[in-house]
């Protein structure tokens, strides 16, 4: 019985720690949308925070509609260093539009959209730098 209680306590503690880690990383990631991290532009969040606790060999993906005539910023974080996360952006036909792996895992990138399109954003940890943890992705648009 004691073992069971101990296991539950440990499990709950782990879950709590993960949630806490994710929450703090969301705040870090929001900084990338703020003017201080850019050329003075403010990026307004699309209203959604994408976060997941991932291990090596896992990725997260979501679909997003990017509207023509808009400027977006996709920002990521997974910890204290800026280059833990690799993210790829694909169009609806799975053509790769961008990968920050080609840009030294830069934590955020801006996308100027000429015409509206549906995209898939895939994000995962660069296992050379971090093997597990919370991963956060944000999208903001410049008004």
């Amino acid at each position, binding site marked *: 019985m004691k073992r069971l209680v101990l296991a539950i306590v440990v499990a709950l503690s782990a879950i709590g720690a993960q949630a806490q880690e994710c929450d703090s990383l969301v705040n870090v990631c929001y900084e990338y949308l703020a003017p201080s991290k850019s050329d003075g532009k403010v990026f307004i969040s699309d209203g959604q925070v994408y976060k997941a606790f991932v291990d090596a060999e*896992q990725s*997260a993906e*979501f679909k997003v509609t990017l509207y*023509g005539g808009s400027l977006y910023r996709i920002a990521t974080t997974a910890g204290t260093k800026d280059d833990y996360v690799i993210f790829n952006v694909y169009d609806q036909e799975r053509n790769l*539009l961008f990968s920050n792996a080609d840009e030294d895992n830069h934590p955020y990138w*801006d*996308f100027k959209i000429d015409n509206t399109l549906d995209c898939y954003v895939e994000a995962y940890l660069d296992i050379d730098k971090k093997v597990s943890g919370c991963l956060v992705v944000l999208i903001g648009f410049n008004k």
Partner: protein
Amino acid sequence: MKILLKYFCLSSITLALASCGGDGVDVDVEQPDDSEIIVIQDSELDSASALNASINGKMFSIPSPIQMATMIKDNVSSFNEEMLTDPENVANFTTEFKRAINMGIYGADLGYATIYENNTKAVSYLSSVEKLSDELGISGAFDQDLLERFIENGNDQDSMLVIMSEGYREGDRFLKDNEEHDVATLILTGGWIESLYFAALSYEETQSQDVANRIGEQKTALKTIIELLNDYNNDEYYSSLIEDLTDLQTDFKLIEFNYTYIDPIHDSANHRTTIKSKSSVKMEGDVLNDIITKIKNIRNGLIG
């Protein structure tokens, strides 16, 4: 082989602004080849496989009402108060469904008023959002401090929008952390419906092709919202709304989208990529008129 966390966390609230409850991850699908990815495009949004996941749910994106309001202002320069709801109606919303839906609707109205720099109106909506938030038991989101900061930044629209989004983000975080995904989904839905209502009325006023296109481009968002509502409709409280939105979807299914890939242009120095791909929306006038009529009916039924 990479495992796809297909349904990350549903975070939502449009206007929002949201935040996900966090830990919402469903590790369930392998991604061995392109053909399976194509299947994911269809099945990922399938309600049967979505939020019944053991954790939080799927990742999706719903366009922000702020973005819709910004686009509308590009086409309609004058503030149209008649388009908005009455911020004094809070007392009329006595059920959780009505409170949550109208918290989303008020959020869109708040965004619209802020974009049009009608700060007096914006503060009225923010006060109403605060009341609804309180009645829904959402803590740590819309409080007096946030309201004061919103007012203090009355001459800085960007700051006002950020503060507003902060409130919705914290609200969403609270709801997700407390497993109240249904309420979060309703807030999101209300915001989306109100922003589509703005677009509908703006099109009637301007006949703008830009606005018409933006309405047509909501097809994906509508599909996602219907699936989310179905996921949380265990008690069938949302059946009527789902039915209305499904009827609306029949018109959206008649819209034709064309897409042509063009190589993007990367600008490493400025951390920017320009997406050059071409796309177009083709929709008959009757279809657009039907959509406008239906969205007006749906929205007006929700604010009463």
